[in-house]
């Protein structure tokens, strides 16, 4: 029996999920298919920055404007996914000092709130930053957990009545004449195929969008720009730190959860599924990081990973560096563009602007379908998944969440002479429910669960792992994305065999359609972690890897597990 729906969405990243929610809230039926886990594409492999817009005020003012607007909205609808770190743009001796004033002028022009931060205040807040920094500007940057946001979006989508099929890959698009009428998807766990009839296919498959379009015989050329990032073992800074210059490689450090992430590079790759991390990229990130935090490369690096940017080039404007390609998104109506109806592609953009992208795409679809309900996603606050500590813990309120008790600093928006970016009431709402660094530590103490941790580094309790397993999150990698199990300093050394054991226990008690072999899961997970650790394997992390190796190879014989 084929499924039937109004809109078939391809891609379970931020964009696809945003579209699904928007459609569902407007009462338009939809099914989302994702070939892996939710957020396993670029959404889960990004830098973690909630953009203020500052990064793009010069290179791409349109994007900057969009980011500034969406920043406010996301703070309202998903505070639990965001940390209000604030952001600074700093002028180091390597940067053109004249750019600073131009930067501020461009911020003003793009409606991106900015204010100069006295150097003394900068040093008080971030004592490890280079003392040679000559000017600093504060903006509304934050950090964002895209995995958690994806889970929240999925919850909202499902409670609005739409369906999500993860581990379902789109194999074919079926055309009747010049119209796409259905997709055929394969369940990657069972291997079964399924046809889904629909009025529209919304292609939100990011860097893979060209391939999906090709299934309908449409040519869509994307530049796949790989960006590499390195996570450091702890947060040397608690504020997002950007170099105040035209955006380039390795010019930003984002504190997110327990780590500080250095990024990024930008290299063309032919295939969004296969790319390596080059030693020179890691070296560059550390060298550039040194300019912001002297001595940075002597700190412990945890792992490196990369994501691919789906950069869209209209056929006319080839050539030029990747960073010059506008990052603002493109909504492509293939009926207008290629004469193929029933297919819309949504490419480019940023995580920060996923909602806006979805809104515009759904406006188009809704108009075509003759549905008149307005978009509601800017006001619907997203639910908090049960796997979060927060579900049980009152959030840290008020200014304490922002900068803590000792700091007198309060965000002093609106800024002189600038149009106030949002209303006062909204600001008050803002302070309330952000994620803050000590949240998990506080929750574990409150629930006296220190003795019952599965992942000690990231403080994940047995109860949370069981909740995730009971909700059907079954691969170890999905559990990692959901709970951060295995993301800390030991990179799975102690937690993964425990998680695998819980997986085994749960599978014993609950009948599964396609049970997962815990041994294989363990081996595959370790293999993936190992891949991420390789590019940074020296010093402390090398020691850790040796210990992990002793545990898994020496003690548990994981290398002897045969393919099933």
């Amino acid at each position, binding site marked *: 029996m084929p499924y039937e729906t109004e809109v078939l969405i391809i891609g379970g990243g931020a964009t696809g999920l945003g579209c699904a929610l928007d459609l569902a809230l407007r009462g338009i039926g939809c099914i989302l298919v994702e070939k892996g886990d939710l957020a396993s594409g670029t959404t889960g492999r990004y830098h973690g920055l909630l953009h203020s817009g500052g990064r793009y005020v010069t290179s791409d003012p349109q994007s900057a404007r969009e980011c500034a607007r969406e920043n406010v909205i996301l703070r309202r609808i998903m505070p639990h996914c965001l940390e209000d770190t604030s952001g600074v743009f700093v002028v180091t001796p390597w940067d053109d000092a004249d750019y600073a004033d131009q930067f501020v002028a461009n911020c003003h022009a793009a409606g991106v709130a900015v204010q100069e931060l006295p150097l003394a205040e900068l040093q008080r807040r971030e004592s490890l930053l280079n003392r040679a920094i000559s000017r600093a500007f504060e903006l509304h940057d934050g950090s964002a957990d895209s995995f958690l946001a994806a889970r929240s979006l999925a919850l909202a989508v499902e409670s609005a009545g739409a369906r999500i099929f993860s581990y379902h890959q789109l194999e074919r698009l079926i055309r009747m004449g010049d119209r796409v009428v259905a997709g055929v998807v394969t369940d990657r766990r069972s291997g079964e195929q399924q046809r889904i009839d629909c009025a529209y296919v919304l292609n939100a498959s990011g860097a893979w969008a060209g391939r999906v379009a090709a299934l309908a015989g449409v040519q869509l050329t994307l530049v796949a720009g790989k960006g590499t990032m390195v996570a450091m073992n702890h947060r040397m800074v608690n504020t997002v730190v950007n170099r105040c210059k035209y955006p380039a490689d390795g010019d930003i450090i984002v504190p997110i959860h327990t780590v500080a992430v250095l990024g990024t590079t930008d290299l063309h790759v032919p295939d969004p599924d296969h790319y390596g991390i080059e030693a020179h990229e890691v070296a560059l990130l550390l060298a550039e990081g040194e300019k912001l935090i002297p001595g940075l490369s002597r700190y412990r690096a945890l792992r490196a990973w990369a994501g691919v940017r789906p950069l869209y080039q209209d056929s006319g404007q080839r050539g030029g560096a990747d960073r010059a390609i506008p990052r603002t998104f493109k909504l492509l109506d293939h009926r207008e563009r290629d004469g193929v109806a029933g297919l819309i592609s949504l490419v480019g953009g940023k995580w920060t602007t996923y909602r806006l992208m979805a809104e515009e795409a759904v406006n188009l679809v809704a108009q075509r379908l003759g549905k008149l309900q307005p978009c509601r996603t800017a006001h619907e606050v997203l639910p908090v998944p049960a796997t979060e500590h927060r579900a049980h813990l009152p959030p840290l309120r008020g200014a304490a969440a922002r900068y*803590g008790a000792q700091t007198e600093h309060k965000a002093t928006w609106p800024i002189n002479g600038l149009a106030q970016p949002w209303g006062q009431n909204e600001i008050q709402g803002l302070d309330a429910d952000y994620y803050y660094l000590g949240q998990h*530590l506080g929750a574990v103490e409150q629930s006296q669960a220190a003795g019952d941790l599965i992942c000690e580094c990231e403080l994940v309790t047995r109860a949370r792992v069981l909740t995730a397993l009971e909700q059907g999150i079954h691969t170890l990698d999905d559990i990692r994305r959901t709970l951060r199990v295995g993301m800390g300093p030991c990179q799975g050394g102690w937690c993964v065999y425990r998680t695998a054991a819980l997986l085994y226990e749960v599978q014993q008690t609950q009948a599964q359609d396609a049970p997962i072999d815990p041994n294989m899961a363990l081996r595959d997970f370790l293999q993936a972690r190992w891949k991420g650790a390789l590019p940074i394997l020296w010093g402390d992390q090398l020691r850790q890897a040796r210990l992990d190796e002793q545990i898994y190879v020496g003690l548990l014989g994981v290398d002897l597990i045969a393919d099933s």
Partner: protein
Amino acid sequence: MLDHCIKCNICTNACPVAAVSDRFPGPKYVGPQAQRFRRVGQPVPDAAVDYCSGCRICNLVCPTGVPIAELNARARAQMVAERGLPLRNWLIAHTDLIGRLSAGPQAPLVNALLGWAGTRWLAEQCLGIHRHAPLPRATRYPFRARKQPRLGRGKQVVYFHGCATRAYEPHVGAAALAVLARQGYEVLVPPQNCCGLPLLSNGDFAAARRAHMANVRHLWPYVQAGVPIVGTSTSCTLTLKEEAPELLDLHSHEVQAVAAATYDIFEFLRHLAERGELCDAVRPLEQELPYHMPCQYRAHRIGQPVVDVLSMIPGLRLKLSPAASCCGIAGTYGLKREKYALAQAVGRPLFSFITQTGSSLALCDSETCRWQISHATGVATKHPIELLAEAYEL
């Protein structure tokens, strides 16, 4: 640096507090692990770190050199900076002041008052100092700084007595002076402050900084003249050597020079012995005595100087307390109402070791440990320097 932690849990296994309490998740947890979740400017989310006694056993066993106890002390200081120092902790951290108030002609009165169960009950109710906690008895005749002999004549050494010798145990100071004099040293006792350790371990870093800088000012002229500083309190000397400079980020030339010139008294005597300058005219002491090397002494990382030096006394046999055992008191920790029972539990293996020796006397270098041991076992305790003084027939 917390970055060095490889999560091996060796410290968790060795921590004496984690072994006896569910309230303390252990060194790895509260140290390198929790530190990744704390940030300056946001309230410390875990009060459990306050259950670290600061014994530093974790530092000693960590294979990668994580200064765990320091991470814990800093987290506690951050909590104190946020929430303020409770009156009780303020009082017991100001050992100097308390000592000055209680030692002297008023001492008998103070001792009588503190010996009375009613007062102790009141102190527990109002202040949170456990009614059975081992409090020392103040002395009528406090150990005082001497009139200053001039610097630079012959062999000289500065004696750092610490608060306890001054207010409670002048006899330890007297023994130290006599033993040093026997080696041909002129002993100078310049004015000095509390070393600041009780302030550090109660999280009052600002007061500790004042105390340490005052000591550096007092001691610097002697250090400059090449005179070593010798102390009988292992925790005072450890504080001068490294606790204060490291925790308070004090690294001036003067601070470093004072640190480098500071010795535990047996460490100093062992140096003399190595150079053949230690007087060996000792009488035999036919005795077998239990000896507990305090945690703070082990943290000096200088081996066992007491064992080395006392080995020259014929007939004396020392029975060493079990490796990595701790009496639990940790300075002021075991005085606190909520921690008293825990501290007793921590000390239990040590106490039973001491009672099993059947000896009526035990040796231990640190004053608060001595009080705790005597309190828990009923066995009298002495500083090893007192025994050495006896052997010299001083």
